[in-house]
Each structure stands twice: as C-alpha cells, then as structure tokens.
C-alpha cells in the first residue's frame, strides 16, 4: 500500500516523542555545564610541557632540541634555545628553551610532537574550556602557561605516565651508575681521555 512505510515511520517518531517525556533513559543528551561526561584515558587536545619536582623552571624536561618544532604539521610551536645550560631530567647539563610558545588556535591535536620527543618533555593535555576574549594573545600559550607538573601528568594519563616514569627512572639509574663508575675510575688517577670517552659514550646513547 502506498504510504505504509510513512505511517510506520510516523508511529516510530511519535513513540520517541512521547517516550522521551516518560522515560529519561531515552535521552542521550548530557546537560553540559551542570553534568559532564567522564573522559576516557586517551583523551587529548593540546600539548603541555612536563616538569619534575616543584620548580617548573628548574625541573623542565625540555632540552630545546627543536624536533617538535620541525615536525609540527601546522607549525604552531615556536622555540628559542637558551645560551646557557641547566641539568635536565637525568641530571646532565643541557640547553633549555628560553622561549617555548604554542599557538593552540593553530594546533590540530595530532600528537606528533609527543611521538617525536626523545625526552618525554611534551605531552597531551585534557583541558577543554579554553575560550578567551582575546583571540590572538589569549590562545598563544607561553612556557609558563604550558608547564605542568609530572604529578598532573600522572593524574590525567596514569598508564602512559607510569611507563614514562619507569623509563626515566631507568635512565636516571644508568646515569647515576655511569657517574659512579666515572667517579670510581677517576679516583685511581684517571686520564682526561677516558673521561672524555665516557662523556662521548653517554652522549651517543
């Protein structure tokens, strides 16, 4: 019969219409500002910089290698290398970023910067209420705004951060052992050549 399917569809929509008033289970909408959906662990939006310890400037893991800046597809990262050095996460003297800006209005949340970072210094954040009245300056985050503690990282991505922490601890242990060995070698009148070779080996690793 002509119109049979139409009638079937009309009953279905009518059932939805009245059902949504009777049965709250049907409603799929979340009333956003009052209630929020739980975020899954792999949630990501914009990158942030991880620091260890209390002081964000001292504990900054980033060594300003600028790989992320080169790899970033939309080119939203801008880094200026420092002139002096400071100890990095494993205690070695490294450069640090004098300036580290990310324009999150350009960022496309691809996570490539995180993938390429050899120092586990840049990770993806989960904050999403970032609206601002200043469309240019407000969305250009500087080093201080980007820095977030390792504890925060552990809180938002526990599994991933655990693995990173374990790897870092192993690195630190190795660095400590190397330093200890170096110290032990240095004690029995070690030559400068051996020390230099040790440094070189560390550097290539």
């Amino acid at each position, binding site marked *: *019969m002509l119109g049979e399917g*139409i009638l079937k569809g009309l009953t279905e929509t009518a059932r939805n*219409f009245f059902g949504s008033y009777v049965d709250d289970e*049907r409603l799929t909408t979340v009333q956003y500002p009052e209630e929020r959906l739980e975020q899954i662990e792999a949630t990501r939006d914009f990158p942030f910089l991880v620091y260890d310890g209390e002081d964000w400037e001292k504990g900054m893991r980033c060594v300003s290698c600028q790989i992320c800046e080169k790899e970033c597809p939309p080119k939203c990262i801008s880094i200026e290398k420092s002139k002096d050095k400071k100890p990095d996460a494993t205690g070695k003297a490294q450069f640090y970023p004098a300036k580290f800006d990310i324009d999150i209005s350009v960022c496309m949340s691809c996570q490539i910067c995180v993938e390429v970072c050899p120092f586990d210094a840049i990770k993806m954040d989960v904050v999403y209420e970032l609206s601002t009245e200043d469309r240019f300056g407000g969305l250009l985050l500087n080093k201080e705004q980007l820095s977030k503690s390792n504890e925060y990282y552990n809180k938002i991505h526990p599994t991933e951060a655990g693995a990173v922490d374990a790897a870092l601890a192993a690195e630190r242990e190795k660095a400590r052992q190397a330093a200890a060995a170096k110290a032990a070698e240095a004690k029995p009148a070690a030559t400068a050549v051996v020390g230099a070779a040790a440094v070189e080996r560390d550097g290539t690793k």
Partner: protein
Amino acid sequence: MNGSVRMAGTADQIFVLVKQWLMGYVPGALQPLASAVLSVVPVLLVFPLLFAITTVLERKGLGRIQNRYGPNRAGFFGILQPMADGIKSLTKEDIIPRSADHLVHLLAPLLLVVASFLVYAVLPIGRNMVIANLNAGVLFFFAIGSMVELAVFMAGWSSRSKYSLLGAMRAIAQMISYEMPLVLSAVVVIMAAGSLSTVTIVTMQATYTGIWPHWYVFTPWGLMGFVLFMIAATAESNRSPFDLPEGESEIIAGYYIEYSGFKFALFFLGEYLGMFATSAMAITLFLGGWAAPFSFLTWIPSYIWFFVKLLALIMAFIWVRGTLPRLRMDQLMNFAWKFMLPMSLVNILCAGVWHFMAAGFVRWVVVAVLVAGTCYLLSQRLKRGKRVAVRTYRFAS
C-alpha cells in the same frame, strides 16, 4: 440559556465589536484608512508571534523526536529562545556578496515577506473576521502565493553563487510542479461551494447534521483533496521531505545561502508565514475554517477553533519533518507528475460525480471506490519497476 448564547456570541465577536467601538471615535474621512489599519495590524502582530512560537515548538518537537531535549536554556524551558534568535539576527553583520546584484538581492526577501503577508487578507480567522472578503478570494491566495517563486528566483539569481542558483532552480522546478496539484486539489471545494470566496466556503461548512459538521474533508473527494493539498503545501513551503531547495547536506542553504543577519531572518519568516498561510487555506477549504467540530462545541469562540486547527496542522508538519528523509529530485518529479497531478484531476471528476448523483449511501460507495481505486492504480504504477529489497553489504555485515 438565551443569555449564555448571547454571552458566547459576545465572546465570539469580541474583536469585531472592539473594532466597531474604536471606529466610533474615528472621524468620517479617516474611516476607510482606520478600518484597514485596525484589520491589518493584528494580523501583522499575531502571525509573526506564531512564527516565534513555532520555531521553538519545532526545535523542541524535533529534539524530542530524536530523543534530545531541544532548546531549554533561554528563559523557562527555552521559551525565550526566539527572542535570543531575533536579537542575534538583528545584531549580525549584513553581508552582501561583492558580485551580487544589489537591488535584486535587497528586494528578494522583501518581496517574499510582503507576498507571504498579503495572502492573509483573504483568510477568515473567525466569524466576520477577515480583512478582505474578495469574490475571487481563493484565486487571490494562489495568485499571490505564486509570487513567492519569483522572490525565490530573485534571491537565487542575484546572489551570484552556484549554490544559491542551484537552490533557486530546484525550488522553482519543485514549486511549479506542485503548484498545479495544489490549485487543482482546491478546485473540488470551489465546485462544491460554488464560490471562490473564502468566507462563503467556510459558511457553507459551518452547518451541522445532528452533531456532525459538514466539512468537506468528510467526503471521499474532500479527504483525497485534503491529503493532496497538504502534500503539495509541504512541497510549496519547501519543508521536509521536500526540502531539496535548501538541502543542507548538498547545497548548504539553497537560494538564501548568501543572506545573513536580518535578511536571513526575513527569509525564515517568509517561509514560515507561507506555511501558516497554506495550512490556514487547507483549514478554510477542507476543515471548516473557524467552525467547531461538533455542534455542541459552538460556544467556544470561532477564532479559537481556527488557531487550534492551525496549531494541529503545524504539529503535523513538524512531525512529518522529524520522520521523513529528503526525497531525490527524480522521486520528487515523478511523484508530482505521475501521482499528484492525475490524482487531483481524477478527484475533480469524482467531485463532479458526487455533485450529480442523488445524496445517499450509493453516492458514498461509488465515489469512494472511484477515489480509492484510482489512488491504488496510480500508486502501483508509481512503484512499478522498483523492487524494494533488503540491501546487502559486502563488508559491513
């Protein structure tokens, strides 16, 4: 008893009496002007207000049909949403494309809204409540309604955008195709009433046998005419499932894509006013206009019945919009020319048979069989060659 009837009569005629009372204070020379203003201004106020209410009803209704809440932030349960929308569209920038034809671009929304408002002149909203009782009222309605097509074309062409031109082409092809069934399905009522005046048509239907009214929809040809009229009205007002001219997924907004701010709102207003007007015309022609559905309910004022019926038809429009997907262009055209047009022509024939046969049970059976049989045959023809099968997927299953 008599007093209550008089009371009911007063309630029924309250607006007419108020107008007469106000006219008493107007000097003689200004009488025609004042009368026109007093008749037109309420229409200019009530129907845009109805538009505002309908937008929020529609959004909430569609939301509920899709198991959502719909707007519920602005004001109590979102009833202030139209105000917010209005303020937004008023304060937005009015963008005119650089290569657009400025004058035509400006005139198109104005013509649309003016044409949409003009048709209300012949719609009887209540007993003795019509702006102009024209002898050729129904014809006036369709004539002015056809000006909408011109506005649509002007909008689509003057924007100099491929989407708006495509939308305008689609809109006009659709409107021309469905205007014929629209007018022809109204012809049966004109035949039965023997008049083109909307007031006469409603008065003819406002009589009762026992408690049952004499609405034209309660005859076989009237029912068919009503269904055809409503389908054609849906197509004329570019509403789903006939919303190809503004299909969002294909041509974004169709002919008014290059409009912004208040001109966009004017298009919206014009479209909804057109929908109300065709619904009101369907009510006038088939559903007894302002007449009560049962003789014992005549104490409720006539204008209330009119608006109850109008709201019911608007709900039906929303319901259909929430249910049916958009048609394809060939389906649209096939339906118009291979079903709607022959069906409305046969319907006219049936109305003629009804007119010349003696009243009684035989007449009912003969005409009902004629209408239903034609409908069945045409629908079989429409379905021929189309085998509906369950679609199989190679990978997705």
